[in-house]
């Protein structure tokens, strides 16, 4: 089937490559595409159409149409006409029930026509409703393009790469190459990308080939598909040289195997030395197509008839075939036997990228094509895409068929016929944008490359207007199909880890997300972990706390004005709890503030609040004009909390610091070496037992963690996770901002009225809080307990029922091993916010009675903490 060696052919006859098609070996040469090799081996039918399962063969041979899509090595929808051959590739046809030449589903073509007009399933398959899933399953399997292997996982690697260039040239034809050469001469950094199929002439500037620009986005961003890499170009200047595309003619039988675009046949001969057919008829819309006749003769194809559509007006064209393959064509009633029909209308500038970039597109009635106009800054068009396509024929919307026994396709991707389009108009879809959505014309794999212009023409004629009035539909990226894997790129999921992360994993911790952080939920048994804290000694990683330094002569005044409570009177080396409020008096974040010096404060925030708080501080600092400097030291410091009756003993063993209750009191802050590591020691307790928080340089974290666990072994030390901490803090009724409060909560109602110092001149949110004080609390956050021994715990978010109606909600609840009953925090109406009030909680599909508790369940007067 191969012609003799020809000058300029792309195949290398000395390089034999073998791949398999449907399991059978196919021989090819280096330089072949899978499509050219299959054609050489005698294959003529390359696919079955989307809806009617009609046989389809090579049409454009340049990767623009849907006709040659196959599954290659498991990847669906590969255009084999441009896919280079690879040794051992496994190629399979798709959307086929039996095999290409004999497709069971082709019956839809024979009987389906009248029953399957466009949009038929919107109308016919909606009743009975119950059956839709069944219909849908059938439709999905009958139509569609290839199959995705759901179990494949990430088989293929996709990368994303960013490149900044002065000039990006899209398209490697003569004009594109010239533009790139000029840019290079000007000394600019230029890259040319070209999608093939012919290789680009290399003239010393960098070329990406085959590589397809898939769109032009804001800021001159051009993503380019280059094999498995998505190259995201940012160019100061973009030159679009995408050329023009041959347009198919609309006549009955225009999709038969053997009907081709002239350019496709030319590539077959020139690149792969193939004879595209035995007897050809050429219907030429321009000089290029006309010139093909000679090439065909030279390749041994008998050219039986050439029609120059610019001179000769045909009224009727109809192609006839058997088993989907062309056998003859009738031109104005004259029937000519042939197996190749090369038919094209004018070449239409491939302006899509320009239109995406913001260019206007206008109709040139003289030549019958759409041309780009008003290019945005930084974008240039050269060559055929500007409309320089020579003298072309304005082809009619459709050619009537003599007897019209076959379908005439306006869109071969989606199997939309001229009748479908007319029907859409009759149903009232008289704008092309609407018809596009209804018929899906231009929405298939060719993205309108081969059907946009013909459907505009068809619309113009049917609505008795003109092409300019119909206009084009909006051009959107991608310009060609892209695989989702390429858009996704490598999987990058940033996670913050504390410096002790690996130690937690070594100890078998179950990790959980808290904001961007990964933290230990537990080390297996949260209740036992909580018990150890009460009985002897627990150790928890609290490195995720936000940590800020606030410095400057105004630091005290600054904090005094930010927080509702007092800080100006905080003594050096002392700590105070603070709740940060918004202008609206809402609870924003909480944490401890230690005064390390007259002009230096150490502020901790919630794990997820660090960035918000630091921005908040910087904002007010600027507004008030205070000379305060804030530094985020969250990552620089690791932190652990030692909690439990044995914590003093362990700390004493590791430091020279006097850790007696007199020297290191509750809420004292001291700096000391602990096991040789410089630490800030804060005596605070979130969990209700004697406790110390150590803050120290992150790089020492594993060392200190190991040392604490080692030296504390005889004291019963055990690490505990977030879950145990949640139980313990509930026993103390410590709130978690964001869990027990939401964006509407204020400190007066959230159980912290003692915190607000009204006598202060001003603080952020004071005015709003005064308002709340005046109107009185409506609902309040309170502790509650359920009956002893009750095994289940209300859901967080669970309802509190008051007088048969929802009246409140549970925000936190756990079973307390210490108390032997479920406890929690809940928002209840103010009249129920008193010690011992009965509340009804909806849970377990029924109701349980609970009791309000305003004091901590455990160590209510804080004796444990202070001892």
């Amino acid at each position, binding site marked *: 089937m191969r012609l003799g060696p020809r000058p300029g052919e792309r195949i290398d006859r000395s390089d034999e490559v073998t791949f398999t098609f449907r399991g059978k070996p196919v021989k090819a040469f280096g330089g072949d595409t899978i499509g050219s090799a299959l054609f050489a081996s005698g294959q003529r039918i390359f696919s079955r159409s989307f809806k009617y399962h009609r046989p389809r063969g090579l049409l454009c041979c340049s990767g623009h149409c849907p006709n040659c899509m196959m599954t290659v090595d498991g990847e669906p929808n590969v255009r084999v006409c441009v896919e280079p051959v690879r040794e051992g590739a496994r190629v399979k046809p798709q959307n086929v029930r039996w095999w290409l030449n004999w497709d069971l589903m082709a019956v839809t073509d024979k009987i389906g026509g009248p029953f399957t007009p466009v949009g038929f399933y919107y109308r016919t398959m909606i009743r009975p409703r119950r059956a839709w899933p069944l219909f849908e399953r059938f439709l999905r399997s009958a139509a569609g393009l290839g199959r995705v292997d759901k179990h494949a996982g990430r088989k293929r690697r996709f990368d994303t790469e*960013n490149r900044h260039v002065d000039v990006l040239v899209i398209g490697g034809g003569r004009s594109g190459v010239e533009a790139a050469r000029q840019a290079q001469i000007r000394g600019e950094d230029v890259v040319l990308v070209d999608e093939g199929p012919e290789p680009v002439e290399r003239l010393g500037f960098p070329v990406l080939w085959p590589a397809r620009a898939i769109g032009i986005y804001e800021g001159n961003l051009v993503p380019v598909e280059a094999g498995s890499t998505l190259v995201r170009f940012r160019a100061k200047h973009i030159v679009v040289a995408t050329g023009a595309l041959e347009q198919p003619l609309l006549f009955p039988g225009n999709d038969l195997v053997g009907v081709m675009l002239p350019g496709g046949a030319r590539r077959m001969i020139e690149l792969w030395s193939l004879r595209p057919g035995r007897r050809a008829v050429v219907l030429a819309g321009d000089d290029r197509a006309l010139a093909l006749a000679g090439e065909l003769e030279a390749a041994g194809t008998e050219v039986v008839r050439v029609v120059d559509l610019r001179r000769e007006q045909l009224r009727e064209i109809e192609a006839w075939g058997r088993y989907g393959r062309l056998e003859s064509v009738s031109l104005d009633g004259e029937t000519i036997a042939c197996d190749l029909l090369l038919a094209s209308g004018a070449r239409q500038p491939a302006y899509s990228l320009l239109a995406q970039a913001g260019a206007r597109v206008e109709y040139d009635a003289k030549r019958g094509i759409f041309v780009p106009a008003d290019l945005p800054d930084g974008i240039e068009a050269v060559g055929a895409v500007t409309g320089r396509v020579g003298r072309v024929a304005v082809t009619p919307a459709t050619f009537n068929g003599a007897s019209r026994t076959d379908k005439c396709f306006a869109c071969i991707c989606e199997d939309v016929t001229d009748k479908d389009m007319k029907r859409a108009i009759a149903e009232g879809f008289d704008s092309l944008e609407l018809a596009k959505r209804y018929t899906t014309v231009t929405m298939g794999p060719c993205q309108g490359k081969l059907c946009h212009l013909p459907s505009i023409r068809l619309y113009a004629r049917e609505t008795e207007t003109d092409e300019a009035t119909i206009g084009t539909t909006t051009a959107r990226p991608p310009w060609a199909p892209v695989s989702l894997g390429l858009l996704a790129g490598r999987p990058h999921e*940033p996670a913050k880890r504390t410096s002790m992360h690996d130690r937690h994993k070594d100890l078998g911790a179950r990790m959980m997300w808290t904001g961007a952080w990964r933290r230990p939920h537990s080390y297996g048994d949260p209740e036992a972990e909580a018990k150890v804290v009460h009985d002897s000694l627990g150790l928890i990683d609290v490195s995720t706390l936000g940590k800020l330094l606030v410095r400057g002569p105004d630091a005290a005044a600054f904090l005094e004005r930010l927080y509702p409570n007092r800080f100006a009177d905080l003594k050096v080396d002392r700590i105070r709890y603070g709740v940060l409020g918004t202008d609206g008096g809402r609870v924003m974040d909480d944490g401890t503030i230690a005064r*390390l010096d007259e002009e230096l404060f150490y502020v901790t925030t919630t794990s997820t609040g660090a960035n918000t708080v630091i921005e908040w501080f910087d904002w007010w600092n600027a507004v008030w004009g205070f000379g305060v400097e804030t530094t985020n030291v969250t990552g620089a410091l690791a932190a652990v909390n030692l909690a439990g009756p044995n914590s003093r003993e362990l700390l004493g063993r590791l430091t020279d610091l006097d850790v007696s209750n007199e020297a290191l009191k509750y809420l004292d802050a001291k*700096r000391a070496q602990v096991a040789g590591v410089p630490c800030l020691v804060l005596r605070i307790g979130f969990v209700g037992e004697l406790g110390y928080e150590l803050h120290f340089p992150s*790089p020492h974290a594993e060392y200190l963690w190991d040392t604490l666990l080692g030296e504390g072994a005889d004291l019963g030390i055990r690490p505990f996770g977030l879950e145990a901490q949640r139980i313990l803090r509930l026993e103390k009724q410590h709130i978690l901002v964001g869990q027990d409060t939401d964006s509407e909560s204020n400190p007066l109602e959230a159980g912290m009225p003692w915190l607000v110092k009204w006598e202060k001149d001003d603080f952020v949110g004071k005015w709003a809080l005064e308002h709340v004080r005046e109107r009185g609390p409506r609902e309040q956050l309170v502790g509650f307990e359920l009956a002893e021994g009750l095994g289940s715990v209300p859901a967080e978010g669970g309802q509190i029922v008051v007088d048969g109606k929802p009246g409140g909600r549970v925000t936190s609840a756990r079973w307390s091993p210490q108390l032997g009953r479920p406890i929690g925090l809940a928002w209840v109406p103010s009249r129920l916010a008193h010690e011992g009030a009965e509340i009804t909680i909806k849970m377990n599909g029924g109701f349980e009675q609970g009791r309000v508790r305003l004091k901590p369940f455990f160590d209510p007067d804080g004796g444990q903490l202070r001892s």
Partner: protein
Amino acid sequence: MSELDFLSVEAARADGRFRPVARSPMDRRLREARAEFEERGGRLVATRIPGEEEHALAIRDVTHLLPPPEGTEPPETHAGFAALEISGPGAGTVVRRLTEMPLDDLPAAGAVAHIRSWILREGDETYRLLFEQEYGHYLWDVVVDAAEPLGGGPKGTP
């Protein structure tokens, strides 16, 4: 102890009983690559990684070579940073696969694989990334993964 010593790795003191040692956030990844370590100035440094000779394109943990260049970050925060070096043929490609930032005007700060990072140029095909240490494992994994198809791999600091 002076005011902000608790932020300083250098303020750690070894005595008879205790011998504090500082680790990089990429320590575990280096161990998994069977790195050999040496203690230098109280820090553990990976000196050699088996198979490193095969990689012309090398990824190195250079956290121990901090502090970062003057003016990039306040000194109190230095312990909060980790640093990676990518050097050899293809180093630029690796960096361009992780960031949109132009590389013709370094140092610059911006997003590298979605996290904030400084990019510094140390030579023609040598780049350093300086970033928050809590992302140490993450960025190590991402950079090694990006370098793999270009023949890159981890290397020690002899």
